[in-house]
């Protein structure tokens, strides 16, 4: 402790303490909010499952969406949105929503995969709609990643950033990063257009093209981070920019130090 005591009045001590605390907070935040896996259950509807979904719906969803999913002044009708929309919203933890608003962020889900599948089956039974894709439908195997990138850049990158890092929208809304989304969730998002996202139906972007896009997203996000730190992946050479700015700051500080007057001047 004497080492610290001797240096606590050093001019740089304050900065060191602030930097240290910031690193601790940042690391803790990163650890706490790190990814949580989402299962993509396969719906095999039967009457028992639909009945269970109905009861789960009444317990978790009906307050806002109405007793028969007909919608209220606070939330839209769910008739016809399909199992895909339910699976996307519930498996990403967006629903049940924490609060009313246009923006629901990804969070740890309250309902498990079986419960999600039950609610999805119930909603599907009400008015049809897009179903949850099978694992083969979202598989990247044999997909055309190049075409996927072209499509992603043309129609997705405007909001989600060209490596899927997400971005801001209007009035506080934001397009989420695609770092945690499973292939199934990406497929369902394109199919159903959750929240502010436009819809890309299977006739405009075919299932094969959706697989290409998913392959691009999963491939680009799996690329290693040079230096071991993603820096938000906001650009192709983020680390270059950061290194440039960091070195600039270092050079400025070094120049200040070199030309600074000595603390103890010779007489």
């Amino acid at each position: 402790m004497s080492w610290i005591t001797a240096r606590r009045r050093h001019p740089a001590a304050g900065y060191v303490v602030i930097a240290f605390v910031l690193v601790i907070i940042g690391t803790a935040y990163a650890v706490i909010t790190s990814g949580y896996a989402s299962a993509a259950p396969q719906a095999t509807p039967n009457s028992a499952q639909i009945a269970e979904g109905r009861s789960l719906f009444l317990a978790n969803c009906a307050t806002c969406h109405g007793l028969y999913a007909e919608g209220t002044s606070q939330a839209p009708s769910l008739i016809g949105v399909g199992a895909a929309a339910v699976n996307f919203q519930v498996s990403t933890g967006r629903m049940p929503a924490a609060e009313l608003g246009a923006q629901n962020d990804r969070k740890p889900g309250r309902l498990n995969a079986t419960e999600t599948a039950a609610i999805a089956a119930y909603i599907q039974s009400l008015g049809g709609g897009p179903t949850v894709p099978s694992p083969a439908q979202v598989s990247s195997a044999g997909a055309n990643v190049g075409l996927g990138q072209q499509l992603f850049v043309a129609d997705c990158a405007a909001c989600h950033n060209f490596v899927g890092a997400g971005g801001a929208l209007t009035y506080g809304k934001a397009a989420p990063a695609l770092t945690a989304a499973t292939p199934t969730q990406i497929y369902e998002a394109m199919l159903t257009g959750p929240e502010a996202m436009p819809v890309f139906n299977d006739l405009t972007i075919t299932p094969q093209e959706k697989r290409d896009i998913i392959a691009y997203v999963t491939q680009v996000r799996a690329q290693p981070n040079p230096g071991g730190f993603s820096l938000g992946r906001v650009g192709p050479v983020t680390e270059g920019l950061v290194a440039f700015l960091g070195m600039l700051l270092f050079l400025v500080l070094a120049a200040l130090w070199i030309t600074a007057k000595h603390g103890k001047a010779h007489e």
Partner: protein
Amino acid sequence: MSDTNSPGATGGGDPGRASWPEYLGGESHGAAAAAGGSGRPEDQGPPRRVIGTPSPAASRTLLAQPDGGDGEEPVEPFTPPEPQDPVRAGKAERIVVACFVIALLAGLGFLVAYSLIGVGSLTATLHSNLALGGTLSLVFLLLAVGAVIWVRYLMPTVEITEQRHLMRSAETDREAFKETFEEGAATSQFVRRPLVRRTLIAATLPLALIPIWVLRDLGPLPDKSLDNTVWRKGLRLLAYGTGRPIKAAEFNSPGALISVGPEGFLADDDAMAKAAVIIIKFRPGELVFGPSTPPGHPTPANVVIPNWTVDNIVAYSKICTHVGCPAALYEQTTHHILCPCHQSTFDAAQGAKVLFGPATRALPQLPIGVDAQGFLIATGPFNEPVGPSYWERS
């Protein structure tokens, strides 16, 4: 003594005239002082210098000259101040020496690496680059670090006032220069023969003009080329990426959006830079329609032209009217089209009118229809230039 060079060089006993240091006189200052007590005889002007020979100023030293011969107080011999803390100085010295020794070793390492590591293969070249660059960087870095520590911890920090000689040359020097210059001007006949002088000056004028003149070749002026895009009646709308035409009946999910380009121009980046378009499908009743307008006619503001849409599908230019970024962030809930560059926000349901941001014009609407097979086509060109303003825009 306003024109003294430095305290030590001050000649005694002759305050009125410029004092010439001893190295200019050809005889030693001390000897002159001994002979007459004044710096130089009055009649002996500054030495005439032949043009082209080195200036005497080159040999002039800025350091004070110890000069005890003219009766002034003798200057004490210089003793460098010692660092205040010998222990600290000793430590700094060791660090500096260590830096320089490692720099030496790194420099030798460069030579060794250069000789030993071949560049025959990609891997070897990689290693060679790393070794050569690394050692050389180390040399320069450690030289710099050593020098800085040397300056900071070994050199004393006494403030030294160094007298600067006057910027203005001595009067006699100036006279001599003027004389030489006028002599040269007269000898060269530059003054006497005005025709030669004027034609010489005239001959250099085009050289000054040439850089300005060749600016014309930086590129053609845009003229009317920015007014129009390649869109024209009958061109199909092709999905960007796949190049597939789009059936109006298949683009049927409310809230759908897709980027499209004109048939035949998808790979033409110059054309696409202006012709990129987004089409959006709305739910019935969401669009705010204005009066029907034939393509090419002026359109009312803040409304969608109904006969330019197909079954609630609207096409807008993707090029932001502010500075031309691709404005394609679309929120199907609010119908906002957002430009990512400067947050210009347009309302797609009301003719893409500006809601927010620096853009001042709505995104132009492209008139669309369907052809016999049900594919979306343009029914005319944009009726105004797309993208940002420019000088020639009418």
